[in-house]
């Protein structure tokens, strides 16, 4: 059941929040041992919150579509009185005294926070094979990674534990797990959703967004979490609006960019075929496909890596005297960042500005771009390299290759399921739009996917 379907059932009194919450807790109890999607389950608090939601709904005090719906957030969103680890040994006993803005606004919208989802250590990686809290497993094949760093959120939503889990995305960390787990993952425009109270990885690249079982659900969540927050200096004052697309929206006349360079150069053939099929579907619904050359995405990826390495290492340097508290992959990245001179960071930010201007020209020619989210489907747990075409590629670099550049540009992007590979593993389509065009990319996404994403055989 999607979030909006559950909300409608609640309004019709066909089900109560207490029942929805009990069912979610039951599913978590059954499936968490094999997926490890949930880091912390807040059963008692959730039951109490659901009871309160039912009482409010009975009094006619509805707070919107999230009211009474069980949800989860990645374990880097600070939650008052509830442990927030960031997937790190450093913070394994950290209990914040305040909520992050996202959590505060979700609670104000009546959502029932049922737990915190597991993640890649410090959100710094894409496998979610956490050395401290265990590997998170993909519900489609539990020998495979769910992607990351919001791997627990992707797995929890795919497994139907919750209809929505919040994630964060610094270089693909919402979109990659959405693609690998076969769910919808929305990275809004930088500034659209407050970062306040979410443990940072890289200040100028971090974005917060939902993973859901339908496109309309992602819009409904964005309606609640988007908006100006004075506690986040980069929060945008631009007014939002309604992000929930029509059930059958029109995309007639929209110009969809088909990148002629970079994005289709090195893909698993099943991914290539599925994404090209999405162009045909869009065209059959009246969209105009516009082949075009995109700016040098590899160069933007390089710039994004320099910024990420420098910002993450600056942030975590005070903790680096305790090297034993970090996993090997994260420690290697933190060491790399420390060795970059300050001039490289400044120059990366200068290049970023130049590339932002270069990319702005795209939106005169097209309304949005379609690309694969990842060149591959979910790799096996423990794999460090994958073969794409005839080349061996580092798993992290392969998984982030098509998504990373969107972060330094700050553009909104959504990953939606667009088929499966020969093994039945989900494939993701990435739809990228101009700044603050979340409503548009969600409308296009809604036109392409079924009302609810497929459920893995669990």
């Amino acid at each position, binding site marked *: 059941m999607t979030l909006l379907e559950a909300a409608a059932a609640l309004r019709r009194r066909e089900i109560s929040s207490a029942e929805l919450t009990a069912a979610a807790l039951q599913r978590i109890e059954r499936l968490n041992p094999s997926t490890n999607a949930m880091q912390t389950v807040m059963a008692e608090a959730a039951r109490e919150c659901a009871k309160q939601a039912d009482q409010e709904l009975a009094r006619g005090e509805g707070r919107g579509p999230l009211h009474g719906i069980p949800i989860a957030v990645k374990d880097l969103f600070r939650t008052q009185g509830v442990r927030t680890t960031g997937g790190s040994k450093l913070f394994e006993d950290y209990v914040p005294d305040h909520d992050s803005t996202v959590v505060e606004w979700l609670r104000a919208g009546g959502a029932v926070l049922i737990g915190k989802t597991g993640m890649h250590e410090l959100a710094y990686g894409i496998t979610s094979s956490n050395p401290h809290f265990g590997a998170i497993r993909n519900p489609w094949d539990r020998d495979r990674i769910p992607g990351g760093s919001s791997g627990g959120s992707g797995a929890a939503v795919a497994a139907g534990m919750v209809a929505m889990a919040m994630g964060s995305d610094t270089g693909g960390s919402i979109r990659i797990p959405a693609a690998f787990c076969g769910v919808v993952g929305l990275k809004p*425009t*930088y*500034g659209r959703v407050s970062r306040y109270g979410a443990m940072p990885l890289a200040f*100028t690249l971090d974005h917060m967004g939902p993973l859901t079982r339908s496109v309309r659900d992602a819009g409904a969540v964005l309606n609640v979490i988007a908006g100006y927050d004075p506690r986040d*200096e*980069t929060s*945008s004052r*631009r007014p939002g609006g309604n992000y929930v697309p029509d059930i059958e929206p029109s995309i007639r006349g929209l110009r969809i960019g088909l990148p002629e360079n970079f994005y289709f150069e090195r893909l698993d053939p099943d991914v290539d075929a599925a994404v090209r099929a999405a162009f045909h579907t869009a065209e059959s619904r009246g969209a105009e496909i516009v082949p075009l050359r995109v700016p*040098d995405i*590899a*160069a933007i990826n*390089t*710039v994004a*890596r*320099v910024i990420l*390495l420098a910002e993450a290492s600056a942030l975590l340097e005070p903790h680096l*005297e305790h090297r034993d508290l970090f996993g090997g992959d994260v*420690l*290697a990245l933190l*060491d*790399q960042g*420390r*060795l970059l001179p300050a001039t*490289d960071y*400044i*120059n*990366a*930010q*200068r*290049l*970023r*500005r*130049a*590339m*932002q*201007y*270069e990319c*702005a020209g795209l939106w005169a020619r097209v309304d949005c771009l379609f690309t694969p989210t990842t060149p591959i489907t979910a790799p096996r747990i423990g794999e460090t390299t994958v073969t794409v075409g005839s080349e061996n590629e580092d798993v992290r670099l392969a998984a982030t290759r098509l998504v990373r550049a969107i972060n330094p*540009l*700050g*553009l909104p992007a959504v990953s939606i399921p667009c088929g499966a590979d020969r093994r039945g593993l989900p494939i993701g389509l990435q739809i990228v739009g101009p*700044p*603050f065009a979340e409503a548009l990319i969600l409308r296009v996404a809604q036109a392409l996917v079924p009302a609810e994403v497929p459920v893995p055989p669990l």
Partner: protein
Amino acid sequence: MNNDRTNTCNKDWKKIARASGMAIPDSALDRIAQSLDALEADFRPLVRALPPDTEPAIAFHAVLPAAAHQEAHQEAEDAE
């Protein structure tokens, strides 16, 4: 932008780490040297091609300053 990615890396990461007083074990530096060399090879040519008057995106905003200015101007006109 000129994207000639000629590998010109001749940095000794161990010496850099020691000179900066970083307590990074040699074995760890050996593991990351290849990644740093590759990044250096990709990044340095981009920096060399950067126009000198390009300012950094220190306070990053997804909407470019020029566009934001234009938009504010439009809003003011609409209000009138």
